[in-house]
């Protein structure tokens, strides 16, 4: 892999500027560079070069001094991130510094950020699903939010284009509510998952239990290696087997010779020229030197994540746009959404004690949406719907066994009993009062205004969650599981790490400029 050109100082003018190098920024960089545009990617964190900078990729637990545990200093640095349950010594360096980059929770909201080249594309869950017209038409049909300007047929060629390059594994099923992607071979369900699938599909018409559709390669693809089933994805994959900007789009952009990526570049604002009547560049702060630099270009593509993109636009004030760039509608920063998270059921499965698996599959099962997909499945309790992720595995907590001593110790060397869980992800409606705003009282390490987040799930999401838990318990009990326990962690938004809204709708709502 060639090194990236990070020498942006000598040249401050480019054809295109891309703000952020996560999933969408990486794609923007690739497309712009391949079209021949000299492109500057501004990344607020350090360079993370594929493989070279995956320092923890081969660590076993005993290679870490505290076997994955964090020191009080590290916990303090991640005092918000840590609520997610995902942060350990193996990935700590890929989660943003919460102390240097504070935000204010008017209501509880977990904002997980990845401040490095590749952003959260290093950390994401890889579940990759197409939308259908059920989704694109929902706003128009139920009146929540404004109508999408496109339909499935408009975006289908782009889905295909992206999937063919990225590599998505899965099984084609022809479900109208979950259109098939261009699939690499699917990963396999284990024996307990197959067993539960059979029982659920037999007893619940219209419900399917499938292997997750994921951006993991199940065969070599475009020069990248296939998944080795280590399940150490979030440390960076030495085989490039899952999709990340670092392994896939940025190297492609780099081979054109048109890419410059500038690390430690915190974009403050997009510069709007009131005379020319257009955006002409961006102003950055160098995170290491505090130097302020302006870069100019014809095209500016802000890909800084849902919240940070809106943050930058709100910060971009001019005579023409006193309330933030493009904010004629007043909706900038509003309609913040996330999927609901950690509502479902878990139970034990008997009868497979002599069965195990080999390999740590970085994927689970998926139950596609089955409510409100047609007249027959219509609910009178809520609009929209939900899907489930989950999986079966041998687990159990040996500390729970009411025993100790020699027999106990020898017993726990064998794998524990089978467990199976499903956890739902419900759609969130766009609400004007779920919003972010600039906070000029709480400043970040560079003296810049931060965000105040004021969002909550409301009645429709709570009704969806209630249904998720009821259905989850019913499905697992019907499938013959034992000790089935429903759960709802009542997580506030943010835990799903699917932030949506805040910026993408503003021009569409009132296109007055």
């Amino acid at each position, binding site marked *: 892999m060639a090194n990236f050109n990070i020498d942006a100082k000598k040249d401050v003018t480019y054809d295109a500027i891309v703000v952020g190098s996560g999933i969408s920024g990486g794609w923007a960089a690739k497309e712009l560079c391949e079209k021949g545009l000299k492109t500057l990617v501004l990344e607020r964190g350090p360079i993370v070069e594929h493989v070279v900078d995956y320092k923890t990729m081969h660590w076993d637990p005993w290679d870490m001094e505290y076997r994955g545990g964090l020191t009080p200093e590290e916990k303090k640095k991640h005092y918000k991130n840590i609520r997610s349950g995902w942060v350990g010594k193996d990935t700590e360096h890929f989660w943003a510094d919460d102390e240097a980059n504070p935000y204010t929770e008017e209501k509880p909201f977990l904002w997980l950020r990845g401040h490095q080249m590749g952003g959260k594309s290093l950390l994401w869950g890889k579940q990759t699903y197409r939308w259908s017209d059920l989704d694109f038409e929902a706003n128009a049909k139920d009146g929540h939010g404004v109508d999408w300007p496109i339909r499935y047929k408009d975006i289908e060629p782009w889905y295909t284009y992206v999937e063919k390059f990225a590599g998505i594994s899965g099984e084609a099923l022809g479900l109208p509510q979950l259109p098939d992607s261009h699939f690499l071979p699917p990963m396999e369900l284990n024996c307990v998952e197959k067993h539960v699938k059979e029982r659920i599909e037999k007893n619940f018409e219209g419900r399917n239990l499938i292997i997750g559709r994921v951006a993991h390669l199940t065969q070599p693809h475009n020069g990248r290696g296939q998944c080795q089933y280590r399940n150490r994805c979030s440390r960076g994959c030495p085989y490039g087997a899952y999709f990340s900007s670092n392994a896939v789009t940025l190297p492609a952009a780099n081979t054109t010779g048109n890419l410059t990526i500038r690390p430690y570049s915190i974009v403050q604002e997009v510069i709007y020229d009131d005379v020319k009547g257009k955006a002409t560049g961006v102003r950055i702060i160098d995170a290491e030197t505090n130097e302020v630099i302006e870069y100019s270009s014809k095209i500016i593509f802000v890909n800084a994540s849902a919240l940070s993109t809106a943050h930058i636009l709100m910060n971009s004030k001019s005579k023409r746009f006193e309330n933030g760039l493009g904010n004629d509608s007043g909706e900038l920063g509003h309609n913040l959404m996330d999927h609901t998270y950690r509502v479902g059921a878990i139970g034990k499965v008997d009868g497979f004690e002599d069965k195990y698996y080999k*390999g740590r599959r970085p994927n689970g099962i998926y139950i596609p949406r089955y409510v409100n997909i047609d007249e027959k499945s219509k609910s009178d309790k809520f609009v929209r719907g939900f899907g489930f992720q989950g999986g079966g595995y*041998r687990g159990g*907590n040996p500390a729970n066994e*009411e025993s*100790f001593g020699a027999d106990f110790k020898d017993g726990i060397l064998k794998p524990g009993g089978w*467990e199976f869980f499903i956890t739902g992800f419900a759609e969130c409606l766009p609400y004007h009062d779920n919003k972010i705003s600039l906070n000029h009282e709480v400043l970040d390490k560079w003296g810049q205004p931060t965000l105040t987040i004021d969002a909550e799930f409301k009645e429709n999401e709570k009704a969806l969650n209630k249904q998720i838990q009821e259905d989850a318990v019913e499905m697992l009990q019907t499938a013959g599981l034992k000790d089935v326990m429903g759960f709802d962690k009542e997580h506030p938004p943010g835990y799903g790490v699917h932030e949506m809204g805040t910026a993408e709708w503003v021009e569409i709502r009132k296109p007055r400029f």
Partner: protein
Amino acid sequence: MDRRKALKKTGLLAGATLAMPSFLSLLQSCKNETRLDWQPEFFTEEEAKTIAVLIDTILPTTDTPGGLDVKADMFIDKVVAHTYDAEGQKNMQNAIAEFNARSKEKYGSIFPELSDADKTAMLKEEEANDPKFNPGVWGTTVGDQKPVGFYRSMKSMAIWAYFTSEEMGENVLSYDPIPGGYEACKPLSEVGNRWSI
């Protein structure tokens, strides 16, 4: 358990490959002597002995290494010293003190100095009374978790220290750092012990 057999095995192991301190600490705990052969970073001598004897009672040496053979006690001391904040450390010390106070009240002396029979009696009672961990989904517990006491927490911590040790992870449990593929339904007999990672 058959302590003589265990000691013999541990002795053989220690002589061959394992470092001496764990062998010695086991030896001493069996004799109910009070001196530690290693210097804890955090625990007092009595606290370290309590943890060591607890680990040895829960995870004794058999044909396979015990908790002390893989230095689970020394690791826990290090973890408490370096990953707990001051409040967490205080809570840990208070919990050990309470545990030993219970032992003293019921059986006449602190836990590490009890006879094997009394240790077993006390831990059986702890097992029956200490709430269990709820199941976890993607790393966090779900459902209404009752507060777990010192015994269950330390048992869990000891098992974690035991399973994540290099000796257990690479040589006793099934170790496969690069599986290369996924075999979705494999006879357990072809794998043997649980996967270490």
